[in-house]
């Protein structure tokens, strides 16, 4: 039996405890099956030919020689996909443009980034498929690549998509897919009333989610016209819908079976291999398996945007922020759809600012189409805004946390996009850091500094379905359609156990396929424990309602005369007449048959998340290397169902934020070729790079959820880059405005500062 270790709220028996995860034994014994672990008899292997150029017109593709290679069963190119409609249609978490999606799966007339898929081969072995790729002849007309938002926005820039138009420019071709503006108050008056104004410019590099498991898909297609895709995805229903859209077939003809997933962080919310594997299976009548290499993952799956950001912010001498103007341009990659609108809505979200103007631009560049990455858009933006906030606090002579608390958003504060917040816990996260042992401890030593920063993320609601089945022995199973990426089976089982009044080991959770459950949106937006958890809560309540009817039959009373407490049903009139769920389960056949609870939600009541981080660093002034000495992160979880996995999300997000801050970046040459397409050179944090990370779970219950849950999966990635930049400033007196703050970049800044100090007595005096 799982034992209770920590009950943070006396009203719950299971929620707030730390039972072992139900999928744990499979994962520590190697038994858990991920997408690439599946095989089928007669299976073919698929490989993708990818563009060596960042920007080129495809003049001809000749597959004749490749098709003649023994063992090659099929080859497909962009011409084998129907041309999708060039408009946004609602699909999955965001809207999708079927034409852009299809062109990203297989390029049609142009390749738009190095690694862009051009053709796919199915053969009897992976080696033969690889050999066939070398025999495919593609004639390209190479075009100049456009690699940065600044280049792409210039009026003379080469145009990626000649059909792209935006609402403001009318019929003029452009690389700017969209301009979003948020505006409140009177920005000029706001700056006029400011006594201190800081204006800074920032750049951040494109970075990848870095999940350890490469993309994979295994597809079958039968002569009954039905296909099945086994894959590791955050969104099986999105895979079904998107694959159907790309192939021009009906979603109902595809079943998606979600395998265990080896990380996603937003990157597995769209499709790459899935429609190709299915298309090749349709062509050959045999199962087709495809797995990306790491280089393919980095070159051709969706990283998140690099960006160029300008922030101007003003405050009074006492520290009240009066106005903020933010300009953001984000790399969308090859097709529209960067998270810049989210960036616009998150960049100032922690603060109550009366006068705000935010301009946000979604810009095409010859890089892979970006995909979601943990709090998409928010981290770049917070790096900029939170650096400026830190500078304002310093100019006012205020502690940076006090400055944040003074200006902090709370219940009723209008969000920059308009609506007022309900109960939120931003200020509580600042106070938690302020009261932490870490913040209260002095930091001593040369070249050391402590920085703080905060972050916001909306979290998502959306659609989920859950079923709870009661078995003859009184155990229950919980069935959902939400792939478990970080422990959500544990939280769903715990929620059901809490409602049913049984021990959590009496509840078995499982994730099922798209035929076996109703539409369930993506595992993303920190929504599973919130929305799927809400469905599980309601489905378990549905079980209790039905069981009351059964107990009423046994007690010979009306259902509403039955009381349910701690897993036991009793007649209100005669409390000595009682029966446990376990005993009642045995009586189900003779009282009406099996009991299954179900619930389908389009969840309302989403509670936004805030986090505040405190990070100590030591800078090596000879190399520019930054060491993370200590790190504490406080995050409002609303209510932590399983605190260990809430901590895990906080620590994992923080680690990704550290990588984004210090080392990770896509490095391209002048021709748009990615120079670091392996994990040695795309430098993610390793175990010795990080200290223990101290999580402080703040619980300001979300009034919109029956257990007070907010999402916890994303916001922890947002504060670290700014917190580290602010710490570096306190360590060596330099404000870094470009990510990553890698050793060469920081060393350059340190050397420039030294040179400046030698030549300028004023600067020397300041130092």
């Amino acid at each position, binding site marked *: 039996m799982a034992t209770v270790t920590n009950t943070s709220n006396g009203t719950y028996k299971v929620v707030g405890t730390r039972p072992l995860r139900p999928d744990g034994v499979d994962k520590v014994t190697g038994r858990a099956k991920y997408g690439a672990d599946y095989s089928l008899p007669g299976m073919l292997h698929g490989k993708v030919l990818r563009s060596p150029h960042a920007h080129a017109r495809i003049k001809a593709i000749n597959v004749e020689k490749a098709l003649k290679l023994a063992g090659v069963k099929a080859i497909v190119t962009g011409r084998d996909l129907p041309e999708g409609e060039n408009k946004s249609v609602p699909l999955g978490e965001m809207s999708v443009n079927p034409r852009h999606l299809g062109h990203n799966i297989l390029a049609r007339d142009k390749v738009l980034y190095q690694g862009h898929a051009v053709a796919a081969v199915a053969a009897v072995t992976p080696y033969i498929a690889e050999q066939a790729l070398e025999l495919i002849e593609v004639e390209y007309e190479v075009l100049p690549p456009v690699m940065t938002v600044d280049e792409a926005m210039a009026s003379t820039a080469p145009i990626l998509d000649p059909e792209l138009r935006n609402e403001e420019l009318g019929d003029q071709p452009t690389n700017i897919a969209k301009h979003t503006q948020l505006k409140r108050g009177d920005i000029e008056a706001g700056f006029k009333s400011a006594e201190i104004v800081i204006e800074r410019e920032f750049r951040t590099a494109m970075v990848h989610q870095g999940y350890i498991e490469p993309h994979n898909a295994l597809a079958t297609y039968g002569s009954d016209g039905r296909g099945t895709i086994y894959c590791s995805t955050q969104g099986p229903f999105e895979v079904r819908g998107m694959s159907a859209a790309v192939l021009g077939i009906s979603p109902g003809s595809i079943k998606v079976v979600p395998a265990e997933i080896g990380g996603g962080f937003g990157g597995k919310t769209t499709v790459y291999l899935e429609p190709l594997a299915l298309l090749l299976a349709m062509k050959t009548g045999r199962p087709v398996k495809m797995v990306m290499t790491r280089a393919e993952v980095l070159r051709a799956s969706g990283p998140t945007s690099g960006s160029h950001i300008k922030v101007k912010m003003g405050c009074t001498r006492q520290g009240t922020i009066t106005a903020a103007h933010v300009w953001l341009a984000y790399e969308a990659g090859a097709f529209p759809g960067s998270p810049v609108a989210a960036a616009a809505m998150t960049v100032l979200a922690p603060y109550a600012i009366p006068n705000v103007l935010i301009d946000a631009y979604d810009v095409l560049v010859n890089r892979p189409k970006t995909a*979601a990455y943990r709090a998409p858009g928010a981290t770049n933006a917070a790096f900029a805004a939170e650096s400026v906030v830190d500078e304002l606090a310093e100019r006012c002579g205020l502690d940076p946390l006090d400055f944040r608390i003074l200006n902090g958003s709370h219940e009723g504060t209008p969000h920059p996009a308009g609506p007022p917040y309900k109960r939120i816990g931003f200020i509580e996260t600042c106070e938690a850091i302020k009261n932490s042992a870490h913040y209260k401890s002095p930091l001593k030593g040369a070249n050391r500094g402590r920085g703080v920063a905060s972050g916001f*993320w909306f*979290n998502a609601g959306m659609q989920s379905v859950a079923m709870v089945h009661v078995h003859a022995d009184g155990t229950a199973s919980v069935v959902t359609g939400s792939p478990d990426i970080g422990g959500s089976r544990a939280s769903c089982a715990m929620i059901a156990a809490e409602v049913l009044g049984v021990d959590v080991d009496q509840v078995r959770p499982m994730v099922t396929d798209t035929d076996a459950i109703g539409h369930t949106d993506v595992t993303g937006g920190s929504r599973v424990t919130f929305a799927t958890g809400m469905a599980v809560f309601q489905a378990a309540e549905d079980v209790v309602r039905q069981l009351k009817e059964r107990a009423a039959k046994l007690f010979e009373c009306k259902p509403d005369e039955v009381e349910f407490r701690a897993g036991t049903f009793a007649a209100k009139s005669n409390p000595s007449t009682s029966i446990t769920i376990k005993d009642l389960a045995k009586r189900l056949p003779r009282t009406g048959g099996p009991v299954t609870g179900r619930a389908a939600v389009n969840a309302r009541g989403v509670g936004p998340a805030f986090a505040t981080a405190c990070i100590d660093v030591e800078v090596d002034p000879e190399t520019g290397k930054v060491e993370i000495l200590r790190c504490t992160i406080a995050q409002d979880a609303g209510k932590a169902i399983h605190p260990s996995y809430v901590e895990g999300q906080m620590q994992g997000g923080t680690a990704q934020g550290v990588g984004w801050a210090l080392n990770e970046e896509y490095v391209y040459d002048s021709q748009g070729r990615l120079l670091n397409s392996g994990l040695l050179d795309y430098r993610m944090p390793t175990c010795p790079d990080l200290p223990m990370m101290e999580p402080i779970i703040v619980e300001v219950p979300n009034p919109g959820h029956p257990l007070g849950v907010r999402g916890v999966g994303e916001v922890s990635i947002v504060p670290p880059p700014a917190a580290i930049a602010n710490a570096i400033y306190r360590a060596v007196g330099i404000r870094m405005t470009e990510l990553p703050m890698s050793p060469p970049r920081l060393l350059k800044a340190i050397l420039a500062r030294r040179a400046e100090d030698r030549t300028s007595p004023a600067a020397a005096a300041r130092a």
Partner: protein
Amino acid sequence: MAKVFIPAQMRKLCGGQDVAVLDGTTVGELIEGLGRRFPGVSALLVEAGDLRPSIAVSVDGEIATGGLLERVGPNSEVHFIPAIGGG
């Protein structure tokens, strides 16, 4: 009468106004009313009988799930905001 907050980029179609007070019991009715008062606005919000996929609507501080059919009260506050996705 519900209070409809007009997104920044639609204000030029609305004589610079950032708020309109309108009658209606659903988001759809409010948008129709807005469109009658300011021609061209409703096409920016509605497409093929539904909210545009790029737009979310907030009613009284809560992201509405009912699209044009979402009920609004006599004192509701309605905001149109960009729809976004999470990771």
